[in-house]
């Protein structure tokens, strides 16, 4: 491979890792700061991606309408796609939160898992909604006319990193505020937080919705990066499990750790691809499973031997005390 090809490859990897970093930041609010166990990230991933795709593409007309079914197509600019994805994910998180956030942690986990599977089933089966299993294609990319399409990924990398930094700063600001301290108090000891007069349910709901909105943003960025989405992308493996491994590896409760974890684990994930390329031909078809097995083992090792992750939780106090 020539140098230009290698650089293009690395840029593509950095875009995907950056999108995963945004998911990790969203999960970090829910799990790292509030202790909410969401194992249905793939659901918000899916909804965010489809929402943004349908907001930014036109509704198919003429001959295309026979082949591509979609409930609506608003043909609006990219920014509206991002905002719409975040908004819809926030509303859905709110609805899931009502029956589950008052109950124990396990219930939230099972419910989020159920919602993710249900959304995948709906998008897979309901052809009128978003073209069923074949998915949507031709999702527009922002600032496309600016450079040669071959070099477009540089622009998109800048957009992803820019949004990642904004999300990072936003969350950093939020978790250092009194609001963030209440979340951590709930995570550490719900009863004593409630005794201090904090409305546990409300704070959990705010954290859950906030995290889900950021995940929706991640889903939207993914849709515009790949330009084509179909339900099979949003599986528990790529949509949920790997994000958990990233956050646990980087350090839950640490936003820098969330970003670092996304890049490190994505690097390892891609690295194992080069490893499995060395396998004999007969085993190659099953290489992805071997790679996921390694990632699964990595999660268990982290949980047993380094549950705080690479960076560990950062001590956060009010800047007035410093």
């Amino acid at each position: 491979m020539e140098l230009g090809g290698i650089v293009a490859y690395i840029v593509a990897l950095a875009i995907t890792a950056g999108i995963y970093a945004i998911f990790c930041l969203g999960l970090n609010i829910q799990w790292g700061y509030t202790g909410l166990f969401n194992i249905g990230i793939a659901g918000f991933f899916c909804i965010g991606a489809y929402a943004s795709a349908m907001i930014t593409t036109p509704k198919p007309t003429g001959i295309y309408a026979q082949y591509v079914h979609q409930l609506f197509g608003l043909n609006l600019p990219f920014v509206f796609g991002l905002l719409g994805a975040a908004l819809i994910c926030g509303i859905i998180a709110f609805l899931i939160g009502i029956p589950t956030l008052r109950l124990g942690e396990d219930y939230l986990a099972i419910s989020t898992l159920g919602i993710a599977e249900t959304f995948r089933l709906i998008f897979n089966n309901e052809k009128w909604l978003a073209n069923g299993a074949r998915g949507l294609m031709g999702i527009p990319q922002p600032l496309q006319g600016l450079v040669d399409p071959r070099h477009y990924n540089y622009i998109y990398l800048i957009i992803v990193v820019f949004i990642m930094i904004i999300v990072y700063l936003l969350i950093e600001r939020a978790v250092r505020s009194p609001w963030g301290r209440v979340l951590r108090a709930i995570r550490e000891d719900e009863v004593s937080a409630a005794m201090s007069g904090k409305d546990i349910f409300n704070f959990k709901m705010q954290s859950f919705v906030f995290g889900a909105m950021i995940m929706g943003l991640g889903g939207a960025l993914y849709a515009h990066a790949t330009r084509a989405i179909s339900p099979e992308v949003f599986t528990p493996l790529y949509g949920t499990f790997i994000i958990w491994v990233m956050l646990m590896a980087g350090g839950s409760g640490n936003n820098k750790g969330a970003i670092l974890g996304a890049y490190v684990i994505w690097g390892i994930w891609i690295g194992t691809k080069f490893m499995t390329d060395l396998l004999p031909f007969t085993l190659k078809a099953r290489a992805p499973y071997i790679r996921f097995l390694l990632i699964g083992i990595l999660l268990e090792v982290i949980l047993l031997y380094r549950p705080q992750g690479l960076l560990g939780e950062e001590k956060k106090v009010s800047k007035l005390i410093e």
Partner: protein
Amino acid sequence: MIELIVYGIVLGSIISLGAIGLTLIYGIVRFANFSHGDLMSAGAYVALFMVTGVLSWIGVPATTFGPLSFGWRMVIAFPVSMLAVAGVAILFDQILYRKLRQKGSGVVIFAMSSLGAAFILRMIILILWGADSLFYKPGLMRPALQLPMGIKIRPDQILILFVVFILIGLLHLFLQNTKMGKAMRATADNMELALVSGINTEKIIIWTWGIGGAMAAAGGILYGIDVQLHPYMGWNFLIPLFAATILGTIGNMYGALVGGLVIGVAQQVSTAFLMPTYKPAVAFIIMILILLFRPKGIFGENSK
């Protein structure tokens, strides 16, 4: 419609086998075991390995019993697979959850660890057998029996109900009459009280995993006989299992049995109105309704 209810009872009895193990583990080891569905898959595939591999190699004949779709090979493979999966469940406990218990990790870390274990099991199945659907005995399905009221049922399905009935009966006798069974029920009722009465909880936890694993394996094999084997079969069972467990009140084995039957019937009856692929979603909706209106399940006292 009556036919769908009968099929639902068959499916529900399989769900019950998984849900009973899940609810015992939930009550005694005290966390949501997300690898339980994949233990069911593991049971089905270990039996497949026995039926198409080991047993054919050592020369057990492939003949089948009368109208049933399996023969001596399955009779041998069934208990072997139950024991093997009990061993796998205990092994996971010893190398993962026991260490987490010693470290005093939070409940969610256990659940996450079991989620990791679920993926590890599934990936091993995918590496060894690939992603296609498999059958214990390829070929046409045996003709169904005609029962009154236009119900068609395959002899295999009648046997499935019979096997589930025997297994649950044995487990009931074990829990009611043996010292270990009584100790298990005591631990599920009140962990602290069990500890001060001198019950060795580590030993009980090992038994719980063993029983849970064996029951899950049986459920997986029976589903494999009834429908097919697929690496994701266990994962698709996970939401029905949790729905059955929560419906029947966590920790209550008889509740899990009832819950499993209710979920199974609801899933089958739903196919009259919905695409069959929506079955997990049906279980999920029922679970959400229970959480909204009776979060402690049908057998739990409502403290709220």
